[in-house]
């Protein structure tokens, strides 16, 4: 999960200036030589002369240098840059989007290199992609997609309906990432070169949204390449180079078929795992945009006209999971007491204040969202009451263990320990490697409390799955979720999901600390970089950078 940072890209303009300065300092050696010869002849007091000539030489070099800079500044003033460097945090380990999990790949490749049958907009709604239009049958079982004409892969192969069919069939046969989300999939076929028909065995409300992600990506069935290091898609960008844990270079495809032609010819993506290094890279101009920036670090860019800072909406939920089968946490009174004991506003304030309170499992950009923050307001008195009902008190304090991955830092654990202590819960905080968390908590479900940023969108199914690590088993919720997915009406589906989410939140199956909103900072002059959802969906074709 952690990525190291190797190497740097010297920014073009910086290296140019350096060499210019080196050349212009050339004439300064002459006066210096003269100054050195003179004392041999006179042998007198020559130090002032030396200093004077050195000063003169420096002044000459400086004036030449600044003059030159001014000239280039005027020449470049207002020009659109050929290349934009984007700073991101988590690097993908390889480019195999069919087998490698992690949103870093979705962020990099979907919409830029690979394209799906349908796409998403910044509000997380389904929009046309390779398919221009689509129809859904009355019973919600047959989806017919009409493809755009003239779509070409970057290797100039034409994209036909058969490519779509082969991609989806390959996905299901190979059990690739995303295949598990195509519930009730029955078959997919090409009725003509531009029409694809997908049939389901039972209606599935979420199908289109799922097809806008990995499940709907279309690959060139005739191309042979190593998916771990290369990518051949129909998107606006070509993958030029991939340096694991360091950078990715994207070049605009001159023959791109779509109307959203890329505005910047070259986009370099650099992965900067260290927050300070990332901030310094933005400040020094090594990168023109940075996402995410730690909110507390972004403060140095606010009120600075050279930079813009904005928080984007996202679907990241910081979930404090409470083991439904834990020794103490199986008691709903204990779980509710924990929810009452947590002061969410304070947690958000300590993180810089840009995150949003979230009272339930569904964030605002997902279907079925409703504001549930009122269910468990911060109320330590109520928490203590519930704990004493559950049999805990000053002489029998409740001891719980919180296990979470070290990628989230120790601050949240420290704060939770402090807040829960006030109601009589002793929290033993264990900050572990992500792999240890995966083993102990996610696989073996050996935990009391756990903290994870669940960044996925449309992931309510976790609460309808009794085998998930939450150990949350509520038949009513499972039924409501099934109904919500089986209905053909989006409104009904949203209503049912909202109902189920309220039950999950009421049961205090977990506590949702906050909805993390990604802060993005960029250099003034850069435009078109997505701010919302940019950790999973980062279309780059609109990005331009006008040097000031």
């Amino acid at each position, binding site marked *: 999960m952690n990525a190291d940072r190797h190497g740097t890209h010297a920014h073009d303009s910086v290296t140019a200036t350096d060499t210019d300065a080196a050349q212009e300092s050339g004439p300064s050696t002459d006066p210096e030589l003269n100054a050195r010869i003179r004392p041999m002849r006179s042998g007198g007091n020559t130090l002032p002369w030396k200093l004077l000539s050195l000063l003169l030489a420096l002044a000459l070099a400086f004036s030449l240098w600044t003059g030159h800079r001014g000239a280039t500044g005027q020449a470049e003033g207002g020009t659109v840059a050929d290349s934009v460097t984007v700073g991101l945090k988590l690097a993908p380990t390889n480019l195999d989007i069919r087998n490698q999990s992690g949103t870093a790949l979705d962020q990099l490749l979907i919409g830029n290199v690979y394209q799906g049958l349908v796409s998403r907009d910044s509000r997380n709604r389904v929009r046309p992609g390779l398919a221009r239009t689509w129809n859904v049958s009355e019973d919600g079982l047959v989806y017919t997609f009409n493809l755009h004409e003239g779509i070409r892969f970057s290797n100039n192969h034409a994209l036909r309906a058969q490519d779509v069919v082969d991609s989806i069939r390959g996905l299901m046969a190979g059990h690739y990432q995303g295949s598990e989300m195509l519930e009730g999939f029955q078959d997919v076929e090409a009725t003509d070169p531009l029409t694809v028909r997908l049939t389901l065995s039972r209606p599935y409300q979420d199908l289109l949204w799922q097809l806008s992600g990995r499940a709907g990506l279309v690959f060139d069935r005739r191309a042979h390449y190593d998916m771990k290091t290369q990518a051949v898609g129909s998107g606006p960008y070509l993958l030029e180079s991939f340096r694991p844990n360091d950078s990715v270079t994207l070049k605009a495809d001159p023959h791109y078929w779509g109307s959203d032609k890329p505005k910047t010819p070259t986009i370099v993506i650099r992965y900067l795992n260290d*927050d*300070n290094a990332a*901030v*310094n890279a933005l400040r020094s101009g090594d990168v023109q945009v940075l996402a995410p920036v*730690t909110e*507390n*670090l972004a*403060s*140095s860019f606010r009120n600075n006209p050279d930079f813009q800072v904005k928080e984007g909406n996202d679907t990241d939920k910081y979930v404090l999971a409470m083991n439904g089968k834990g020794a103490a946490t199986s008691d709903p009174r204990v779980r509710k007491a924990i929810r009452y004991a947590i*002061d969410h*506003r*304070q*947690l*958000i*304030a*300590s993180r810089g204040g840009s995150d949003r309170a979230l009272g339930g499992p569904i964030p605002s950009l997902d279907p079925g969202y409703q504001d549930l923050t009122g269910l468990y307001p911060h109320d330590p008195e109520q928490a203590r009451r519930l704990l004493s009902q559950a049999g805990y008190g000053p002489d029998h304090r409740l001891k719980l263990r919180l296990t979470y991955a*070290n990628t989230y*830092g*120790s*601050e949240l*654990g*420290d*704060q939770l*320990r*402090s*807040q829960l*202590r006030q109601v009589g819960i002793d929290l*033993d*905080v*264990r*900050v*572990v490697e992500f792999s*240890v968390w995966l083993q102990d908590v996610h696989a073996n479900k050996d935990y009391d409390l756990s903290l994870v940023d669940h960044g996925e969108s449309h992931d309510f199914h976790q609460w309808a799955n009794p085998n998930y690590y939450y150990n949350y088993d509520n038949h009513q919720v499972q039924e409501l979720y099934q109904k919500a997915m089986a209905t053909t009406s989006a409104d009904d589906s949203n209503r049912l999901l909202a109902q189920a989410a309220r039950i999950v939140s009421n049961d205090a199956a977990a506590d949702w600390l906050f909805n993390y909103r990604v802060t993005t900072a960029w250099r003034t002059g850069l435009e078109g970089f997505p701010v919302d959802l940019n950790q999973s969906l980062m279309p780059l074709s609109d990005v331009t950078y006008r040097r000031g």
Partner: protein
Amino acid sequence: MSWEHTDRPRRGSRAAFPGRLGFLGRMRVVLASMWRKASERYSLIVLVMWILFSLVSRFWTPVPIWTTDGYRIWQAPSRDHLLGTDGTGADILSWLMAGSATNLAISLLAVLLSGVLGLLLVMAMVSRRSGVSQVVVVLVDALISLPTVLLALILAVPLGPSIAVVVVACGFGYGLNLARIVRPQALLAAESDYVQSARHSGVGSFRIFCTHLVPNVIPVLCVQLSMSAGTSVLAEAGLTYLGVGVPSGLPSWGHSLTTSVKFINVFPLTVLWPGLVVTMVVVALNLFGDALRDAIDPVTNPGLRAAVAAAGRSALQPAPQAVSAQLDDSDHLVENAMYAGEGGNDVAKY
């Protein structure tokens, strides 16, 4: 031949503690001479304060350390928070005080471990069995190339982040160093006449090591062990930053540094405090080692020499008996040697 004469000599040589000045009296002279120099006074003050803060923090800190306030993070120093607050709104001074106890424990344990390990290795290295000594010398030379950090990272795999990782990694690494640095001094002493005569008098090798060799290397030990203590403070900070040192939830200076160093560009003060404490303590420990070596060695400390001489003059009364006792002893040296020969293998290794 009377049996009482076959007793082995009770007192070793007094290279480091010559004369008959008592331990407390000696300490008084040593501390007084250290107090005279400003740099050494500084090291004494800092170390005493370190110990004091560690003790006090077990019972009291200005603000309980598990009090966070999300609305008052990264606060500048104020009346409520003398050094300000950190990223969770906790009091920095309280955390540094609580951390001093952890760091003191780590330093003491690391010094103890490195001292014991180092001396055991020295014992093997100056062994008269050339096989043992050569093997150990080569082994130490090889192991010394293992960086402490690497060792800690390896240890952290089974142990997870814990104090034990820091203590074992530091103790092991510094113990090896200690052994290498002490060995020449110990070898020199082992070749000396008094050790030879002790050996021929049938004194056991372990006893010779403790009574003759260790006092000889005490000046070097002082410097090395105090430097180890200082380095272990630095190592704790570094290893905790890497995530293999003190686990989160346990206050330590490394923890305070780690949580604040991310924000060094925005809130530099919060990094300054723990950094300052670490620097002050490490400098104090390094100065302390040098000062102690100078102060306890009568050769370099005229004050101690004078005190020992004064104590020796006042202890002149029983001198004739002592001389006669020594003569007695020398009469029976041969017998002692014979006894040693019967006594078994534990003698005469040096």
